[in-house]
């Protein structure tokens, strides 16, 4: 196996490492069970070196020997002086960064179960040559061969596969824990060019937390007259609660901050309970968000681009999950927003992809397509029954067994449709064919295997085969996966819009089919049992039977049909038991007959033939 090249996002506050596994980036969980690692290094009195979460936890007890945000010093003459055992040691920013990289490397080696010697490391687009060189050196000190230094916005775009599209202009909006960056890139023929960068080195999610904390402290002071700001224990709880509230407000409109026994005064314990709405939160951070949009504007000016020139927006950093952030960007830039990949990990994922390309791994892997839309066949009542779900990687094969809808049905029509709607007619028809010559049989008995086979070129072969006679028929559809993007989007959108109504329709049909099935089996039972059913019972059942049939033929409202089904199944329950007893006593003969039907072997591909093939 080829050696893996890991992708490292060496961040100001947090770092992340990922690796390409079977063609897809995989974020590596660190020793502490987290997917990102704080970019903090500490030296303890005993000369021990701590990196990541542990270093962060002890920062307050050891402020002189704890180093955070070393990234801000990369490429400068800044030196870290550490006094241990009376000796003073001097470290360069490269050396400190190397300690972070070393931890990431170790976590990756544990995850991969082997040595890692090569990496791709990301840097901000605005890093100059000496900052880039320093980053490269940091990698080298950590024992890694840095195969390439790439820009963070470029890595994020790679993660979304934007290098595979035609010429585009991309805006990357990166709002992290403590820094904000905007970059405008132009991509053509796989080459990224940075047109402009701008940012704010001290703006991020932590500022939003502080706004919520300040508000909580102020509200509590108004309510109780107590100032929590002097109480470190209360402040810590407030900080955790503020961050949790912020996150919750990304998916909910309102949250409650509930902190019992937050403090106490002479009159007894005090509790905090505050409701915070998303609107209120947005108002609290509005000036900060407006600042980011001004930065976007200045980056656009620098790139000499208008908002309408931006084709794609890529979101990076945890704070971009805030709905208001996305809303503001959308209102400023009408381009397409990419936000599906976890925004804390997207840069590392892109670096891992670049690593995979350099390792030749991506070349080796044949890039496979996926089916953009579900492929189904039409079944009783016009329902589209899926064989291959959308997003399935091709080539692939699926077989499902179907049956007939009527007694002695001589043929089935296989109607192949494409789309997400529940009803066949609402989807795109790809083609139809018939399988004829089915031997006479009661409905529900014949078994017809329908096989969908999409090859690597997206050509769909559909074959239907009657199990009893081995008769088969097939069709080849060439353009099953070659819809243009806008058509796919339209069909997906429509499916979403009609989801409720489609579901209702499908349920209605299901009910009608059930009614139909019930009518059939009750009629059959009545005729099979003949004299065994009392005159009285027969009369009652036939009455209800007629009512249900009428309702079906009149296309009565579904509720009425459902009711009629219930009545009939209740009164015919006894009948079913009788019928069951009878079939049980005569079983065997009937069943073997239907399943053993040999029929004409007209060109049907037999299993035997397949065995020969494999030789």
């Amino acid at each position: 196996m080829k050696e893996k090249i890991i992708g490292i996002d060496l961040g100001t506050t947090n770092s992340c490492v990922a690796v390409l596994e079977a063609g897809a980036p995989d974020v590596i969980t660190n020793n502490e069970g987290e997917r990102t690692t704080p970019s903090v290094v500490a030296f303890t009195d005993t000369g021990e070196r701590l990196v990541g979460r542990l270093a962060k936890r002890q920062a307050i007890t050891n402020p002189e020997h704890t180093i955070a945000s070393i990234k801000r010093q990369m490429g400068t003459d800044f030196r870290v002086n550490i006094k241990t055992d009376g000796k003073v040691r001097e470290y360069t920013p490269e050396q400190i960064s190397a300690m972070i990289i070393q931890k990431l490397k170790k976590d990756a080696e544990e995850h991969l179960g082997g040595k890692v010697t090569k990496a791709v490391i990301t840097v901000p687009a605005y890093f100059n040559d000496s900052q880039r060189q320093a980053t490269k050196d940091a990698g080298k000190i950590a024992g890694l061969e840095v195969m390439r230094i790439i820009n963070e916005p470029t890595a994020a775009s790679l993660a979304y596969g934007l290098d595979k599209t035609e010429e585009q202009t991309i805006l990357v909006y990166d709002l992290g824990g403590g820094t904000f960056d905007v970059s405008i890139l132009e991509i053509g023929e796989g080459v990224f060019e940075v047109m402009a960068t701008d940012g704010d080195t001290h703006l991020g999610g932590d500022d939003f937390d502080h706004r919520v904390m300040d508000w909580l402290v102020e509200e509590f002071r108004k309510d109780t007259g107590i100032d929590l700001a002097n109480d470190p224990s209360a402040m810590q709880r407030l900080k955790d609660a503020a961050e949790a509230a912020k996150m919750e407000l990304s998916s909910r409109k309102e949250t409650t901050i509930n902190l019992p026994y937050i403090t106490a005064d002479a009159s007894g314990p005090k509790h905090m309970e505050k409701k915070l709405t998303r609107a209120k939160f947005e108002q609290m951070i509005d000036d900060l968000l407006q600042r980011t949009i001004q930065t976007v504007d200045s980056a656009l000016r620098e790139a000499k681009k208008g908002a309408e020139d931006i084709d794609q927006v890529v979101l990076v950093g945890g704070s971009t999950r805030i709905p208001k952030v996305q809303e503001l960007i959308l209102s400023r830039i009408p381009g397409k927003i990419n936000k599906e990949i976890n925004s804390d990990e997207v840069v590392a994922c892109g670096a891992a992809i670049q690593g995979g390309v350099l390792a030749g791994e991506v070349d080796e892997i044949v890039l496979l397509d996926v089916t953009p839309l579900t492929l189904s066949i039409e079944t009783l009542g016009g329902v589209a029954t899926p064989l291959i779900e959308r997003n399935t990687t091709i080539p692939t094969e699926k077989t499902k067994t179907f049956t007939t809808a009527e007694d002695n049905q001589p043929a089935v029509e296989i109607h192949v449709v494409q789309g997400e709607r529940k009803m066949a007619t609402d989807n795109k028809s790809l083609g139809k064919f018939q399988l004829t010559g089915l031997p006479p049989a009661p409905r529900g008995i014949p078994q017809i295997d329908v096989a969908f086979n999409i090859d690597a070129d997206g050509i769909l072969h559909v074959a239907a085969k009657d199990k009893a006679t081995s008769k088969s028929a097939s069709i080849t559809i060439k353009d099953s996966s070659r819809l243009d993007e806008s058509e796919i989007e339209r069909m997906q959108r429509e499916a979403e819009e009609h989801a409720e109504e489609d579901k209702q329709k499908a349920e209605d049909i299901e009910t009608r089919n059930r009614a139909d099935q019930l009518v059939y089996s009750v009629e059959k039972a009545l005729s099979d049992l003949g004299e065994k059913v009392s005159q009285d019972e027969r009369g009652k059942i036939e009455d209800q039977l007629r009512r249900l049939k009428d309702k079906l033929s009149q296309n009565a409202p579904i509720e009425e049909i459902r009711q009629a089904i219930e009545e009939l199944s209740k009164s015919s329950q006894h009948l079913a038991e009788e019928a069951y007893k009878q079939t049980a006593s005569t079983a065997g003969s009937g069943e073997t007959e239907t399943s053993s039907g040999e029929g004409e072997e007209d060109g049907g591909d037999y299993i035997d033939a397949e065995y020969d093939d494999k030789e």
Partner: protein
Amino acid sequence: MSHEKNDAINTTQPVNMDKQQEEAMKLDLTAQDTCSAEEEETRSLIDRLKRLQAEFENYKKRVQREMGSLEERISDREILDFIPLFDNMERAFMSYSGNNDVGSFIEGIERIFAQFSQVLNHKGVAPIEVLGRRFDPAKHEALLSVESDEEENMVLEEFERGYLRNERLLRPNKVKVSRGKPKTEE
């Protein structure tokens, strides 16, 4: 063989093979052009590779979906262990609003607390003792560091309890740490 209900396909009257079908058959014939056995083998191997890879991709997608629902079910199970505590809490309040007996209310709450501890205990959750010990960043998080008569790096106060689960850190204790005695002029 389990007889799952198969979906039924509607019929129309039998017709002759339609055009598309004919075309498909023709296409099959033309595909049979003359290529050497070697080429044929390569082609079939490549096809097999692609299919294997696609199957793997689809497998990964399925696993991912299943992981999601598995997580959901595991958390369901965990929640079920805590619901009785909630029920009992409710009973305590109901009983108190009926009899206004503070003594029996407190006793009830104590019982519920014991039950709560038991649930956590069964789940392997144990509090981390920290007072009088040395600060350890592997288990503790320092919120404050103050001068004191205690030795440097001793934990002086616990702001929030920390927990281990089966020896793994769940949550660190939030603590106040001694910076040692006030330093005299250096």
